[in-house]
């Protein structure tokens, strides 16, 4: 298994939407390398004939009546919004330069 390179980390931090300084990238590259080495052994034991478990106690067909349940009011929803306007969340431009 390949350890995580600094370049990988730059890419991952973009995917995860976390800005990182150069110093942070340097430190985390080393730390993640150690962690990935320690956990890579799982791929040795997991052969193709073993089924995957996504959930410890599988429940299937968890259904309910298709009716409106208890919901929050608009005021409650917007109570913690960093910014809002006319009952909507307000955010900066979605696209560059617009």
């Amino acid at each position, binding site marked *: 298994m390949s350890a995580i390179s600094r370049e990988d980390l730059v890419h991952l931090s973009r995917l*995860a*939407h976390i800005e990182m300084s150069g110093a942070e990238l340097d430190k985390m590259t080393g730390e993640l390398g*150690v962690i990935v080495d*320690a956990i890579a052994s799982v791929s040795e*034991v997991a052969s193709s004939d073993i089924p995957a478990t996504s959930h410890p106690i599988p429940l299937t067909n968890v259904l309910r009546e298709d009716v409106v349940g208890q919901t929050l009011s608009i005021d409650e929803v917007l109570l913690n919004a*960093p*910014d809002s306007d006319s009952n909507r969340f307000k955010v900066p431009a979605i696209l560059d330069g617009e």
Partner: protein
Amino acid sequence: MVNNLVSDLIRLSATELAAKLRAGDVTSVVAVQAHLDRIAEVDGALNAFLHVNAEEALAVAAEVDAIRAAGGAEAEALHPLAGVPIAIKDLIVTKGQPTTAASKMLEGWMSPYDATVIEKIRAAKLPMLGKTNLDEFAMGSSTEHSAYGVTRNPWNLDRIPGGSGGGSAAAVASFEAPLALGTDTGGSIRQPGAVTGTVGVKPTYGGVSRYGAIAMASSLDQIGPVSRTVLDSAHLQELIGGHDPKDSTSLPKTLEGLVAAAESGATGDLKGLRIGVITELQGEGYQAGVQARFEESLELLKGAGAEIVEVSCPNLKYALGAYYLIMPSEVSSNLAKFDGVRYGNRVLPEDGALTIERVMGATRAAGFGDEVKRRIILGTYALSAGYYDAYYGSAQKVRTLIQRDFDAAFAQADVLVSPTAPTVAFELGANDNDPLAMYLNDVATIPANLAGIPGITVPGGLSEDLPVGIQFLAPAFEDARVYRAGAALEALLEKSWGHTLISQAPAIDSASIAPKA
């Protein structure tokens, strides 16, 4: 009431305090005030609480007292624990009190709704003392990764109280609260319980609703009780457990007979119970003092009539690896919602174009601490194209292997036993530059989360003047068994010592803490 009696109140178990409240020997207002006074006295040194909810707690206490004083049907209908105060891990959302998850991301956030467990606590009228400290978003084993300062271990203020639920464990261990709620994703209830000499239970996955617990890793997270006695945890799990339509992973059936199992265990008779000692969860990697206390407990259990059998779970050596792939993967997904758009803090980039993407990047850079960032990045990596099958896919297969190991072990034994943590509480700062060393502290607790099975930690004695925890595990849905075995060991050990372990905790010397730099 004279002063020494008031200070004795905080040392009662929740069950004892509840009996005194029902008998009218003491009022809930007096009991709650005694705990608030204790918080005022020692929490400057411990930092177990992030928020103290004094006004509401006293109001609920006064309401319970008024109902009891009036008598009649309403008094009879009160929950047996009504009026007994409780502390809440600050990962569980509460109306009217801040919920931070110990993160800067949620500083000042007020939940518009209550978690289901909080609704149940309100309905039963347990006054909530406040919100307890944790590792940020429950990620850590030491409570050092809180954005609001470390919590200290009441047994030794230079040591960690465990994590992530170090605040709840320290609050209960230091008599600031008789009960607390915790959450356990890889041991966050049980490992703090072990290192603070208290009791903590991770119920069967789905046994207690997770609705309103801020999600860390949804297939592993479980809310559970924290207390000083096994019986108290049983009472609390019966109060908070049961099906919840708001949590689609909640079990359809309520897990019953927990209090009865704890009471039956406390008789100390274990005839007919088969207890499996897990070969892989002892010996190498476990401190000598931890191993010694563990072996003493086995002797006592044997003496009480239990049959001790050795069981092997060979795939447990892969549990830590599987956990550190599955958990961060789920973390990276669950924490994507903290983006500064709908709630939580928004941070603007210092320069350049003001786009939503850059605002998210700046918000998450400023809002999350190092450990949270590490896990989000690790999870993003494990789920990314080219690595998914090798990492996340393999980890899910290991999860199957571990479940099969437990199935085989439970064919030979009714419950399994191990030390809860391989070491006593380590020193604050000891693992600052070595995240992996901290992760290893959860090696004995993680397997239960991967398999969804219940686990309890009970105090097993001291090593280096610090508590050691003993863990029992049972098959899924058989939570009653961990209460029976746990209560039995608790009773046997207390009989052999002539006292409870927590009564041996030293007085908390607030003056010994160096002022914060």
